[in-house]
């Protein structure tokens, strides 16, 4: 097993963004996804203090009181974070509702939200100084403390590895492999699979860099976009080691977004480019998912 982090006297094990005290609400708690994952979150120990479902205010679900609106929740509870399980066409309304109410952490699970809607709520989150995770993310899990979202949580055990991923299932895959090798995660964050995202690699890496519980970071990327190239710029400055895995080595070049996409990206986005940028910045790049725990083993041995 990995070495215990040496803690200053009185200091508790930390995590980034969410921890055992984070009070969470679920928007869309009565829907298929919302209700299922509320049970999972509760089982994991997440402090789910309330749910929101317009028109269903007054009922309770798994012991959690349900309200009609976020404002109604806030009249009765202290809330730190919300998780959005609202269908894509009306998700923007729910995200705006949470942000406008002043909730500081908004986790948007919903996929297929129109990108123009995403641009709007990401911009509003920035104006409100809120952390927005996603959209189209598995959420965030601070191992053993708090899970917000949909990750299958049995593989997320406490430990020294920070994990951030563009892909949900690849994050689970690698978390499971890490757990099998004896390495738990301080926190795992799903950046989200859509082309625009609230929190990005750089912001998440900065939090891991500052988190005393995290000793190394695993970054899971994909071809397309330039998030990994941007991350590389910050990785250069980090004191903690970063292990990266990039999916899509064998994929045909993505269908171009006209010349405009090429102009904006300036040639970034390919597997080779990402691996090169990350390696140059000092990240250790795994060829296969199974190599990630091997590299972490060496680093944290």
């Amino acid at each position, binding site marked *: 097993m990995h070495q215990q982090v040496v803690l200053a006297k009185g200091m508790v094990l930390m995590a980034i963004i969410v921890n055992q005290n984070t009070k969470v609400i679920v928007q869309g708690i009565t829907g298929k996804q919302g209700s299922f994952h509320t049970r999972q979150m509760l089982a994991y120990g997440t402090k789910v203090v309330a749910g929101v479902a317009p028109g269903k205010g007054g009922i309770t679900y798994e012991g959690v009181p349900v309200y009609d609106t976020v404002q109604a929740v806030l009249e009765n509870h202290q809330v730190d974070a919300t998780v959005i399980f609202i269908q894509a066409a009306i998700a923007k309304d729910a995200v705006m509702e949470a942000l406008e109410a002043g909730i500081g952490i908004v986790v948007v699970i919903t*996929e297929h939200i129109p990108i123009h809607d995403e641009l709007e709520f*990401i911009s509003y989150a920035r104006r409100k100084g809120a952390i927005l995770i996603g959209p189209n993310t598995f959420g965030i899990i601070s191992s053993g403390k708090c899970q917000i979202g949909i990750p299958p949580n049995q593989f997320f055990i406490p430990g020294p590895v920070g994990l951030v991923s*563009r892909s949900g299932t*690849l994050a*689970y895959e690698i978390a499971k492999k890490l757990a099998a090798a004896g390495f738990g995660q301080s926190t795992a964050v799903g950046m989200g699979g859509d082309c625009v995202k609230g929190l990005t690699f750089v912001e998440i890496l900065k939090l891991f860099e500052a988190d005393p519980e995290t000793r190394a970071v695993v970054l899971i990327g994909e071809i397309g976009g330039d998030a990994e190239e941007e991350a590389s710029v910050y990785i250069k400055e980090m004191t903690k080691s970063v292990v990266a895995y990039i*999916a899509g080595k064998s994929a045909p070049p993505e269908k171009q977004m006209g*010349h405009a996409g090429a*102009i904006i990206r300036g040639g970034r986005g390919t597997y080779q480019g990402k691996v090169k940028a990350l390696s140059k910045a000092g990240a250790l790049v795994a060829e*296969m998912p199974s190599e990630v725990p091997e590299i972490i083993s060496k680093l944290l041995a």
Partner: protein
Amino acid sequence: MRIFEYMGKELFNRFGLPVPKGKVVSCADEAALAAAEIGPVVIKAQILSGKRGKSGGIRFANTPAEAKSIALELLGANIRGYLVEKLLVEEKLAVDQEFYLAVTIDEGAKSPVIIASNQGGIDIEEVPENRILKVHTDVELGMYPFIARNIVRRLGLDLGSQHGKELVKAILATYQVFQEKDAVLVEINPLVFSGEKVFAADAKVIIDPDARFRQKDIPYVEGQTETEKLAQDLGISYVELKGDIAVMANGAGIAMSTLDILLHYGGTPANFLDVVGGTDTETIARALEILLAKKPKVIFINIFGGSTRCDDVARAYAKVKKKGSGIQVPVVIRLVGTNQDEGWRILQECGIKAYTDMEEAAAKAVELAVHAPAGSSS
């Protein structure tokens, strides 16, 4: 979702951005009629691909007879892999100057971006970076004429001139199309000065497929194979490849990684299939039927359950197995995550044991494909 040039131009027209006079035709006689009406024309194959000019998809005709003969040649032809079914027959403009203009989304900046250059034409990617303007907009602020004026000024044009004023209007109209039609790209290359006026001589418009529910007036363009269409109707992501191992995974990342690993072990994937999160037994069963219909040597199902639940996947397998001709090719299933125990139990009842490690399962799938009897592949 990309739409044809002529559809993009219809949109431009609606938003007040001038386009050359033109007609869409689907037979040679119509092309001749259009040319008779318009005069000297340019005839453009309507396919969802760039570089049409270099591939002979853009031609000029001075007479109706010429137009007819070009149309006969183009209609039904295959250009860059696309069947030409329609032509846009357009007034041939006297071009004084060509610009490049686009509005798209800058992922890194998380905001829309207007891209403009006074070096328009087919080879915009060859234009040096310092000749290409990139202006980001603030989605809360929105678009304003002053933003367009600054772009026109920085393109080196006189804002007091007719051209300058028209270009300001063209930029505003282009942005409006982008904004109101949920576009992820509106690209005009070239935008031309012809006489006193500005025209969008081309139109490359991609609409956000996730916004189709509120953009019902945008025509739906089918640029896919039958299987891809079937998959899309199911709400799953599918791309055809040339190998013999049919693949199903959940999540774009793990699906891509699955292909990478198959190749790593010497296998060749027949497709990319991401069932996307949150699908139910029925959808997964239909996805599996799509794979079966491809007659691969092996099917490799790689599921790490999150919002996709292992029991739903196992039930889908059981359902397809019991139905009609059942499952005649070897299936390797790797199944872990949400509700995995229940999933394993169901699979066991079907007489199949789930793998838990994806590399191990991938290696097995490749081994089976390599040793599969000849002729069982598609």
